C-alpha cells in the first residue's frame, strides 16, 4: 500500500513538473522580453524594418526576421505536405506488410537525425546545388532552408497522418465499397475526408516544428536581416537570430531583452499553432466517434 502511494506521488510530481517548467519558461520570457517593448514600443519592435542591435543607436525591428520565418515555414509546407501525406497514404493504403515494416521505421529514423546534421547536409550539398541550378550568387537562401526544413518535418506530418488514416473505421471503407465505389474513389471521397482533421493536425504540428527549428536555418538560410523579397535570397529567421546572438549579447542590455522579445513572439506563434492543432484533433475524434 505504501509502495503504491509512493509511486502515485512520484508520478504526480513528474506530471506537474512539466507545468512548472512551462510556467518558469513563461515567467523568464516575459520578465526579460517585456522591457524591449517598453523601450521601442510594440509597433516599432514588430514592424520595424531594420535589425541593427549593436550599433549606436541600435535598431530593433523584427519584421524582416518574422517574414523570413513565415516564408521559410511556408516553403517547408510545400515540401513536407505532399511528401508526408503522400507517404502516409501509401503506407496505410497501398503498401504491403513487408514494405510497411521497412518504410515506417526509415521515415522515423529521419526524425531522429540531429538538426545540425541536416544543417551540414544543407550547407555542403543542397546549397551548392541550388546555387548552380538557379545560377545564384550564393546558395544559402530561403529556398534551401525550405527544402531542408520540409524534409525535417516529413516524419511529423507522416506519422500523425498515418495514425489518422488508420483510425478511420473499417466500416467506412466497407460501406463505400459496398455502394460500388472503387478503391481510388473510396480513398479520395471517404478515407481522406474522414481522416482530414487528423491530417491537418499533423500538418500544423509540422509547421510548428519548422517555425521553431533553429540549428538548420542558422546554417543554411544565409542570415541576411533584409526584407525577404524572393525565395532565392539569403534571409534571417527569428530562431537563428536568437541562436547566433545570445552568447554575445551583454546581459541586461536592450539587445539581450530584444532577443527575449523575439523568443516571446515565437512562443506566441507556436502556442497558437498548437492550440489550433488541438482544436482540430478534438473535432476529429468527435467526428469519428472516438470519444475525448
Amino acid at each position, binding site marked *: 500500500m505504501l509502495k503504491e502511494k509512493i509511486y502515485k506521488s512520484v508520478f504526480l510530481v513528474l506530471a506537474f513538473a512539466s507545468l512548472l517548467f512551462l510556467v518558469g519558461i513563461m515567467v523568464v520570457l516575459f520578465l526579460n522580453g517585456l522591457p524591449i517593448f517598453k523601450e521601442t514600443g510594440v509597433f516599432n519592435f514588430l514592424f520595424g524594418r*531594420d*535589425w*541593427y*542591435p*549593436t*550599433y*549606436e543607436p541600435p535598431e530593433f525591428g523584427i519584421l524582416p526576421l518574422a517574414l523570413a520565418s513565415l516564408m521559410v515555414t511556408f516553403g517547408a509546407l510545400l515540401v513536407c505536405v505532399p511528401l508526408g501525406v503522400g507517404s502516409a497514404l501509401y503506407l496505410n493504403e497501398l503498401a504491403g506488410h513487408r514494405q510497411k515494416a521497412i518504410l515506417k521505421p526509415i521515415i522515423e529514423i529521419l526524425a531522429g537525425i540531429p538538426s545540425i546534421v541536416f544543417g551540414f547536409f544543407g*550547407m*555542403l550539398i543542397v*546549397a*551548392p546545388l541550388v*546555387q548552380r541550378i538557379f545560377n545564384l*550568387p*550564393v*546558395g*544559402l537562401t530561403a529556398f534551401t532552408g525550405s527544402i531542408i526544413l520540409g524534409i525535417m518535418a516529413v516524419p511529423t506530418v507522416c506519422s500523425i497522418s498515418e495514425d489518422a488514416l488508420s483510425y478511420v473505421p473499417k466500416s467506412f471503407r466497407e460501406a463505400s465499397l459496398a455502394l460500388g465505389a472503387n478503391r481510388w474513389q473510396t480513398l479520395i471521397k471517404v478515407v481522406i475526408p474522414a481522416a482530414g482533421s487528423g491530417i491537418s493536425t499533423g500538418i500544423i504540428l509540422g509547421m510548428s516544428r519548422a517555425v521553431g527549428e533553429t540549428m538548420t536555418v*542558422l*546554417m543554411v538560410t*544565409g*542570415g*541576411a*536581416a*533584409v526584407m525577404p523579397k524572393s525565395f532565392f*535570397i*539569403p534571409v*534571417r529567421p527569428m530562431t*537563428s*537570430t536568437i*541562436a*547566433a*546572438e*545570445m*552568447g*554575445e*549579447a*551583454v*546581459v*541586461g*542590455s536592450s*539587445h539581450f531583452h530584444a532577443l527575449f522579445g523575439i523568443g516571446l513572439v515565437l512562443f506566441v506563434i507556436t502556442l497558437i499553432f498548437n492550440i489550433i492543432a488541438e482544436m482540430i484533433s478534438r473535432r476529429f475524434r468527435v467526428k469519428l466517434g472516438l470519444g475525448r
Partner: protein
Amino acid sequence: MKKIMYILAGLALMLFAGNAFAGVTIKGSTTVLPIAQAAAEEFMDQNPEIDISVQGGGSGVGISSLIDGTCDIGDASRAIKEQELKQAANKGIKPKAHVVAMDGIAVIVNSGNGVGNLKIEQIKDIYTGKISDWSQVGGTGGKIVVISRDSSSGTYEAFNELALKKEKVRNDALLSASNQAVVTTVAKTRGAIGYAGLGYLSEEVKALTVNGIECSKDTVLSGEYPLARPLFMYTNGKPSGDVKSFIDFVLSAEGQIIVEEQGFVGLK
C-alpha cells in the same frame, strides 16, 4: 528501477562536482576556447591536484559569468564594454584584463578569385555597400557576395572597428554564426568575400593582402597588419591562487607555444 536511480544519482553527482570541486572555472568566447582548452589540459597534466573546467558560450557569456561569480576566468575576444563595467561595479567585481594572445582577422575570398589585394578603404566600401561588383576593385566582373559574422560576435566587433570604422554593414550581407561557417561559405561561393581568425585559414580559400600586407603571425605581431586584435582572459581583480597559476602558465613561454599551436599569435 534501482539501476535508473543509480544512474540519476551518478548524473547528479557529476553536475554538482562541476561546481563543488572544480578549482578553476573558465567560460566565454568561442574564439579563445581552443587556447583555454589546450592550456587547461597541459596545465592539469602538470598539476593533477588542480581541476579546471572550460566552457564556451561567447564573449558576452564569459563576461556576464565573471560578473555573476559563476566563473573564475571570463574569456573574451573583445574588450569589456561600458555597460558591463557598470554591472560589475554594482556587484563589487573588478574585471581585470589579461591579453593572452593576438589574432589577425584575415580577409578571404574564393580560391578562384583573381583579386589578391584590397586597400582597407575598399574593404570598407564593399562591406558598407558602396562597391558591389568585383570589376570595381580590379577583378573579373561579378556580384560581390558579402559575408560577415553576426553583429554581436567579438570577431565582428573587432572587424567593424578596425575595417569599417563602426559604419553599418549592408543589410543584405550574409551573417554566419562562426568562423568555420564563413570559411565554408566562401569556399563554396565564387563571388564571396568574408573574414575569419588566422587560425581558421585553410587551403580552400584565399587570404587577401590588406594594403599590400599579408596576414601572418609576423605581421600581426609587428603591428603592420591592420586587422589585428588582442584576445582576453578576464579575472576578478588581481588573480590569486590557482587562477593566478593558470594565467601565469598561459602567459609563460610554454603557454605561448600552445597559443601558437592553436593557430593564434603568441606574445613575444
